[in-house]
C-alpha cells in the first residue's frame, strides 16, 4: 500500500460521508416516515422528533386500516408473497435454463452460437412494452394469462439473458484443460459440468442470480398488464394507498420499507458473492 497523507485520508473520509449521506438519506427518511402518522408527516416544518407509531406496519400486516373516511382493505402481505414467488421462481427457472445454455455457448463453439447468444442478450434490451401487449393476447389464447407460470415465463425476459451473459463469461474463464482433465480421468461430461464447471463458476452464478433477482423484484409492468390483483407484486401493491379518501403516506413509506427489506436481506447475505463474484467472469475482459 502506498503512503497516504493525512490530508488525503481526511478528504477521503469526507467524501465517503457525503456519499453515504446522499445514498442513505432517502432511505432513512422513508424509514422515519413509516413510523409516523399522516398528521406528523404533513407537519411543517418537517421534524425528526415525533412519537413513533407502528400503526402503519400493523395495518400492512393485518391487512386492515381504519381511517375516519373508510376502512381500507389492504393485501400487502399477499403482494409481498407474490414478489417473493415471482422473483424466486423466475430466477430459479432462469438458472435452470440459462446455466446449461451458457455452458454450451462458452464451451462448445457451435455453428451460429455467437449469433444465438447475442440474440438472446438483445432480448434483455427489447423494450418490455413491445412484447408485452401482443403477449397478453397470446396468453389469453393459450390460457397462460393470469397464471404464475405465465408471469414467470415473461420474467425470463429480464432474468434469462442476464444470467446467460454473465455466467457464460465465467465458464469461458475456466481453463478448458481443467475440464478436459476431469473427462480424461474418466468422468462423463455431465459429471464434469456438475463437479467442475458449476463449482468453479459458483460465485459468478450467485452474483448473476442475485442481480437477476433484484431486477425481477423491481419489475412493475409485467404483472400489472398480465395478471389479476391477487398476483400483483409489491411494486404495484405499494400504490394501493392512494385512494380517493386520501393518501396514506405513512403506509406508503412502510410498504416501501417492507418491499426493500427482503432484497436487502438477501444482498447482505450474498454480498461477498456480489462484489467478489463479479470480479471474475463476464464483466471482465
Amino acid at each position, binding site marked *: *500500500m502506498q503512503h497516504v497523507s493525512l490530508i488525503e485520508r481526511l478528504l477521503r473520509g469526507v467524501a465517503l460521508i457525503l456519499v453515504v449521506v*446522499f445514498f442513505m438519506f432517502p432511505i432513512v427518511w422513508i424509514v422515519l416516515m413509516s413510523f409516523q402518522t399522516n398528521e406528523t408527516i404533513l407537519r411543517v416544518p418537517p421534524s425528526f422528533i415525533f412519537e413513533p407509531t407502528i400503526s402503519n406496519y400493523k395495518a400492512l400486516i393485518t391487512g386492515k386500516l381504519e381511517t375516519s373516511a373508510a376502512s381500507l382493505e389492504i393485501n400487502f402481505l399477499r403482494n409481498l408473497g407474490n414478489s417473493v414467488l415471482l422473483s424466486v421462481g423466475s430466477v430459479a427457472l432462469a438458472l435452470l435454463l440459462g446455466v446449461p445454455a451458457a*455452458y454450451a455457448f462458452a464451451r462448445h463453439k457451435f455453428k451460429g452460437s455467437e449469433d444465438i447468444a447475442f440474440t438472446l442478450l438483445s432480448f434483455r434490451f*427489447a423494450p418490455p412494452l413491445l412484447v*408485452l401487449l401482443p403477449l397478453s393476447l397470446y396468453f389469453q389464447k393459450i390460457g397462460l394469462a393470469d397464471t404464475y407460470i405465465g408471469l414467470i415465463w415473461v420474467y425470463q425476459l429480464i432474468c434469462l439473458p442476464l444470467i446467460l451473459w454473465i455466467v457464460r463469461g465465467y465458464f469461458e474463464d475456466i481453463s478448458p484443460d481443467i475440464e478436459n482433465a476431469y473427462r480424461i480421468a474418466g468422468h462423463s461430461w455431465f459429471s464434469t459440468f456438475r463437479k467442475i464447471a458449476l463449482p468453479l463458476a459458483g460465485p459468478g452464478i450467485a452474483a448473476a442470480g442475485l442481480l437477476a433477482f*433484484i431486477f425481477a423484484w423491481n419489475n412493475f*409492468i409485467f404483472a400489472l398488464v398480465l395478471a389479476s390483483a391477487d398476483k400483483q407484486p409489491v411494486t404495484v401493491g405499494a400504490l394501493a394507498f392512494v385512494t380517493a379518501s386520501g393518501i396514506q403516506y405513512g403506509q406508503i413509506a412502510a410498504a416501501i420499507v417492507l418491499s426493500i427489506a427482503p432484497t*436487502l436481506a438477501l444482498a447482505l447475505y450474498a454480498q461477498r458473492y456480489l462484489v467478489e463474484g463479479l470480479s471474475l467472469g463476464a464483466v471482465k475482459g
Partner: protein
Amino acid sequence: MRAYPLTYKKLTPVSTTASKRKRSGFISRAALPYVLSLPALLVCIGILIPFFTAVFYSLQRYRLSQPWAREMNWGENYLNFLTDPGFWATLEVSLLYAVLTVGLELLLGLAIALLLQRRSRVNNFVSIMLLMPLMTAPALAALMFKLMTNQGFGILSYLLALVGVDDFRWGSSPDTALFTVVLVDIWVYTPFIMILLLAGLRSLPTQPFEAAALDGVPRIQQFFRITLPMLTPYILTAALFRLLESIQQFDIIYAMTQGGPGDTLTVFQVEAYLNFFQSTNVGRSAALLMILWAITFFISNIFIKNWLRLRERARGEA
C-alpha cells in the same frame, strides 16, 4: 538425488480391453450444445412471436378505438415520424437522458469505487449500505422522491428553503424536471455501476501498480495509464447495461412527471405507453417501440463487438 525403487504395485488397469469400452451416451457430442441451449432458446422463442406481432402492428394504421379503420399502411407510421416534431423531441430527450444519467453515474460510480477499493471493514460495510438504493424498485424510488420533493412537507424542498432556495420546483418545472428525474436515476443506479467497477478494481493485478510506484509514477498518471485501461472492460459492461436501460427509462419518469411538464420528458417508453394505454393508438405505439428497439440493438451491437475484442485481447495476454 536418490532413485526410487519401483515398489508400485501392479493393479488392474482401469480400462484394458477394447471390448469393455463404452461408447458415447445417447446424446452425441455434436448435438450436446444444442440440447443444452435448446430449452433457453424455446423459452425465448415464445417471446419472439409477440415481437413479430408487434412488428406487424407497427406497419398498420391501428387504433383500438377505431377498429373499422384498421388497415396495413406499411411504413406510414415510420414516415410520419420524419415530420413529427413530437417524435424528434422524444428521440432527443431519450438520448439526452441516457447520456446524462450514464455519464454521471459512471463518473460517480467510479469515484465511489475508488474510495472503497481497499478492503476494510468500513469499506465493506459502506458498499453494502450503498446497495440499498439498487434494491429499491425504481417505481418506488420515484414515489419516495416525490414525497421528499413535495412542496408542502417534502424534506428536500424544506432543506432547500432553509439554505435560501425557496422556489425550487423539482419535477414540476420544465427547467428542473430533467434534473429531478436524473437525480432519482443516479440515486437508484449509481450503486449498480459502483459495484461492477468495485469488483473490477479489486480484481486488478497488483504488479503493474507496484512497478509503477517503484518507478515513481505519480498516482494521477497511474490512474490514467494503468487503472483506467485495465478497467475498460468493466466500464464497458456497466455502461452497456445502464445505457440500454436508461434509454428505455419508464418507471421513474412516468411516476414522477408522466412525461411533463409540457413535453419535457416524453421519452420513448413513456410516449409509447401513453400512446397505447390512453390513446390506444397501437400502430404508432408499436412503431415508436420498434425505433427504440433498433437504437438499443445498434448500441448493444457496437458495445458487444468492442467488448468481445477486449476480451479476446485479455485472453491473448493471459
